[in-house]
């Protein structure tokens, strides 16, 4: 296995990781600030992808599609927050799990009802499609580099938002002490809606960006949702930094596990059996990683709050 291949795979893992981060960041904010476990976050991702595909199909503009995806996901998020989620902040996790499970059913079949049962088409704009040659002679798709860039930029912006701005101070205050910030005169319910909208918009952005290189179809949100949960649990719920590191860890584990585990098994097994056993183990790898992290640190890598 050549160095070039390994570097390329690391880039792939990184790209997968930063896309997961877009999902995980919203989830972890929503959990950290409002104490809400939102299974329907994957549906917002799906909405982003579908709206992007529909808008790109109508206008031909990818930028417009992305803007529309973020807006639509944010609007859906706000609606859901105001109609349903708002009543659940005080409820226990059980009610939240059930209610947002119900939302998944509604969103998935609702989307199928509106857009039909066939996958939609969404393509990379021609300006950023195709491979570029990186130093060292690695050929790598430009679009994936763009994704890495966008993901890291969002991570940096969020970091700045949380640590340096007024709203970030409020968000952090809200994580620590809900009554206190209400007493300080911050309209807590508007703050919650705003955070939910932000999280939803990020999910919509991820859906639109990833939709261009994947299949835009009903049910695309759930696998990503579960991975995003794995990420925030590894990183520690409520921590943006944890979400970023968790995302990249999961992205790298998943990508590199799929490559190297079969190779590893080939050292002491017949190739066909090794291929199959390695692939099986690779598909379990991130869950094993998560189990190990939680057994080692029961509140994740950067989690302070026992939820």
């Amino acid at each position, binding site marked *: 296995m050549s160095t070039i291949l390994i570097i390329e795979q690391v880039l792939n893992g990184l790209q997968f990781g930063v896309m997961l981060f877009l999902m995980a960041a919203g989830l972890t904010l929503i*959990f950290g600030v409002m104490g809400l*476990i939102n299974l329907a976050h994957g549906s917002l991702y799906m909405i982003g992808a579908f709206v992007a595909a529909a808008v790109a199909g109508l206008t031909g503009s990818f930028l417009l599609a992305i803007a529309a995806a973020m807006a639509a996901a944010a609007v859906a998020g706000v609606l859901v927050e105001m109609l*349903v989620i708002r*009543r*659940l902040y005080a*409820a226990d*996790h*059980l*009610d939240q*799990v*059930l*209610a947002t*499970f*119900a*939302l*998944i*059913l*509604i969103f*998935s*079949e*609702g989307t*199928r*009802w509106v857009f039909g049962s066939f996958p939609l088409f969404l393509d990379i704009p021609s300006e950023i499609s195709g491979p570029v040659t990186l130093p060292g002679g690695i050929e790598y798709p430009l679009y994936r580099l763009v994704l890495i860039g966008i993901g890291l930029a969002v991570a940096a912006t969020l970091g700045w938002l949380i640590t340096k701005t007024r709203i970030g101070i409020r968000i952090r205050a809200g994580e620590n002490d809900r009554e206190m910030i209400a007493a300080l005169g911050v309209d807590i319910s508007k703050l919650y809606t705003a955070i939910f909208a932000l999280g939803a918009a990020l999910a919509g952005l991820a859906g639109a960006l990833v939709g261009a290189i994947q299949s835009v179809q009903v049910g695309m949100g759930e696998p990503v949702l*579960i991975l995003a*949960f*794995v990420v925030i*649990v590894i990183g520690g*719920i409520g921590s943006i930094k944890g979400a970023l590191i968790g995302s990249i860890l999961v992205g790298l584990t998943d990508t590199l596990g799929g490559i190297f585990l079969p190779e590893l098994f080939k050292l002491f097994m017949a190739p066909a059996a090794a291929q*199959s056993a390695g*692939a*099986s183990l690779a*598909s*379990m790898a991130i*869950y*094993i990683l*998560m*189990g190990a992290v*939680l*057994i080692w640190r*029961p*509140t*994740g890598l950067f*989690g302070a709050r*026992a*939820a």
Partner: protein
Amino acid sequence: MIPEKLLNLVVLALLLAVPYWASLNDAPFTITLATRATIFALAAVGLNIALGMGGMVSLGHALFFGIGGYTMGILAFHAQSFTPLIDGPMVIEGTKSMPVIWAVAMGVSALAALVIGALSLRTAGVYFIMITLAFGQMLFFFTISWSSYGGEDGLSIFLRNEFPGLDTLVPFNFFALCYGLLVLVILFNARFARSPFGLALNAARQSPDRVRAVGLNPQRLKLVAFVISGTITGLAGALFADLNRFVSPTMFSWQTSGEIMVFVILGGVARLCGPVVGAVAFVMLEHFLGGLSEFWHIYLGLLLLLIVLFARGGLVGLVARRGAAHD
């Protein structure tokens, strides 16, 4: 409002009466539906011990359901193909005998619950939800690629397994077996809730510090409850496999975990017959709404939302007041 005890009796009586009527009137599919509801109820009664009594929100109970199912599948597969389960110095044969299958399914589930519970209970809250989910996903992906037992295709068992002295191929007989087990487990559950252990477990959920201060270890109480819970859900899995004469990795999927949880909450958390009411209601919804529209999941979702938002006690909470707390 009626007393919960009366409601429990009515629910269990109806669950028996409808299939009995169906067996007299040659409506075998009604019996199949009732059996399905009964088995789901059993799985949910199991989850309710962890969820309602122990306060452990497990999103991984499909794991035990699946383990029960695969135990049945693997044992029966070896029996029908006349191949030994384990070869070598010690030969273990498959079996078609239900009592043996049940015992093995419960044993394996209990063992799995012990290991998974011991690891998962180091965490709490959302972390617990997620780590149980993760264990479920591990087994899901493992069975998908476990080609010796069919992988994603699953395993078909051609004939229903046997129970001494009973023709299990008669739908009502198999229903009666499942129903009998459900009633046994509910009776166990009713006594269990009032036993010293039930009392301590209840307190461990509400106030772990207090439990520690009287000299008990709340984590150990919860672990035992988790094992009992997993064992019962495992038994339900074995029955479910026998009802379908088929097992597949779907039994391990997180949606299955979600559905078992839905049964509990739909009926009423920590209510003795809550899971039964929930499972029956779900099967009926699935049957009637499914016939109404191919988008029936939307209606199911709306209904669940309404329950969570406006009927916290579930369906049982709507019609029955909680029984006197101590008797």
